[in-house]
């Protein structure tokens, strides 16, 4: 109970700070818009290769961009933990009965919440560009859920790295190191049949791809709800696992004090 209420109040604090500087939300959306508007246009004839399940590349791309954006956002989420560590905000909480788990969890929840808001905005822009979600409202929920789960899976990792290294420079290096490889080893930009065989195999184990597949499944016709459920479940389990890891590293941080 205390963990939940502490998490809530700590998320409210972070959300409020974000609302006070809404410019961040906009700046962070710049990149996905470039992908959607420029990249989507540049490669619009790529669907002629076949295997995309739609002739409209932007329809193929839009749900994946939502997930990609959630993924990139997550890789940076540890920066906020480092800020709180550097500014001794974490120490202030540690001298109170505040739940230790809530300190870590609130960071992940804030990160996932940001991803959800951005998902809605990207979807609205996509809608204006003519993208239609085949399964309607239920599809929107799935896409947003996929964004939340991909984000929290990697936010857990990012928090753990932040707590282990406690240095912004290292965070940036790690984010860059895992960002593009995981993006290219997924079906974010290309249909699976067009990928080299070994990449198709690797992509099966890529959580970013799980999110992309779940989100795309509900946008294109021929939705398999079984697959959607499986990918979301996998992502949920991964989120729990990385959150547990982040909590474990938090104990290590406490011991270092």
């Amino acid at each position, binding site marked *: 109970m*205390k963990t939940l*209420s*502490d998490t809530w*109040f*700590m998320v*409210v*604090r972070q959300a*409020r*700070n974000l609302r*006070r*500087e809404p410019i961040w939300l906009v700046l962070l959306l710049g990149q996905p818009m470039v992908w959607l508007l420029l990249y989507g246009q540049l490669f619009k004839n790529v669907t002629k290769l076949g295997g995309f399940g739609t002739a409209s590349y932007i329809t193929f791309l839009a749900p994946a961009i939502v997930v990609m954006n959630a993924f990139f956002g997550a890789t940076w989420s540890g920066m906020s933990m480092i800020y709180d560590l550097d*500014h*001794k*905000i*974490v*120490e*202030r*909480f*540690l*001298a*109170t*009965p*505040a739940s230790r788990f809530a300190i870590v969890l609130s960071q992940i929840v804030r990160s996932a919440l940001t991803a959800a808001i951005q998902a809605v905005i990207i979807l609205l822009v996509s809608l204006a560009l003519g993208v239609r979600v085949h399964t309607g409202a239920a599809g929107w929920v799935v896409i947003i859920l996929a964004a939340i789960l991909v984000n929290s899976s990697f936010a857990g990792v990012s928090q753990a790295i932040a707590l282990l290294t406690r240095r912004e420079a290292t965070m940036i290096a790690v984010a860059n190191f895992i960002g593009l490889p995981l993006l290219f080893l997924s079906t974010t930009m290309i249909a699976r049949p067009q990928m080299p065989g070994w990449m198709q195999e690797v992509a099966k184990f890529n959580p970013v791809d799980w999110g992309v597949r779940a989100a795309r499944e509900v946008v294109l016709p021929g939705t398999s709800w079984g697959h959607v459920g499986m990918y979301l479940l996998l992502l949920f389990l991964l989120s729990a696992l990385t959150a547990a890891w982040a909590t474990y590293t938090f104990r290590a941080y406490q*011991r270092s*004090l």
Partner: protein
Amino acid sequence: MDAIAVQDLRKRYGDVQALDGVSFAVREGEVFGLLGPNGAGKSTTVRTLVTLTTPDSGSASVAGHDVLRERLAVRRALGYVPQDSGVDQLGTGRENLLLQGHVEGMSGRDLRARVDELLELVGLAAAADRVVRGYSGGMRRRLDIALGLVHRPRVLFLDEPTTGLDPEARVAMWAEVSRLAQAESLTILLTTHYLEEADQLADRLAIVSQGKVVVEGTPAELKAGLKGDAVTVELENGAVDEAQRVLASVGATPDQVLEGRTIVSRVENGGRALPGIISALESAGIAVASVSLSRPSLDDVYLHFTGRDFTSEDRAA
């Protein structure tokens, strides 16, 4: 019962023995000062007492609860005002206080009323809904203290409450702390490297040096323990041994020698002894650069018990 009891705390960080057997006790309702230069182990002691740091050995209790075995009870009983504030600069003063109250387990009308009361108490009512980033140093420090008091703790830890404040704000803060100690009937443990601050605020104090408490008592007791005034003689050259002999012959007991050329001696009545001291040194042919006389201060107490000059040691740290 003692509000804070500390027994033989030891803590090592790598090659540094931060705490080397710290022991002291703070009675309920008193303002207790831990005085020492930077790096003496004051902050580590406080961080151990507020459960942030786990000691290698030793034991301690706060408000009757063991800091190692009853951490939650200790955290509930104490308020902590850290050296580095830990305030959320993007939030307002009121938002910071409300969040602190929430994680302390308060809520609703009780919390809101308490926050209003504290904002009034520390003189931040008018600035309550402004973002902290725009606060002055003194305002931030007052908010820090209010944050430590939200849940009506019985014991308050103030780690270097006036470091970084200008002299004017420092004096205002002293008045503030004294007033709060009264108004909230608190036991306060404060650390400081300002002798004047310890003298002003503390009912009793302990001098900490190199991870140990070297002496403990009221400021008056400590000063009285020195017996008499300090006569400081600075020599032109290094004839220290001869000068010490001369000083002793006229009843000025040499206490400490600083930097090989300055001798601090104790005399019963400095004003009466001074002319004799000067003429004795003169007739012995010892060149004197300066002679000064001072009433016993905590500076002298520190010098006497640690054999080191407080000001220069603090600067070096």
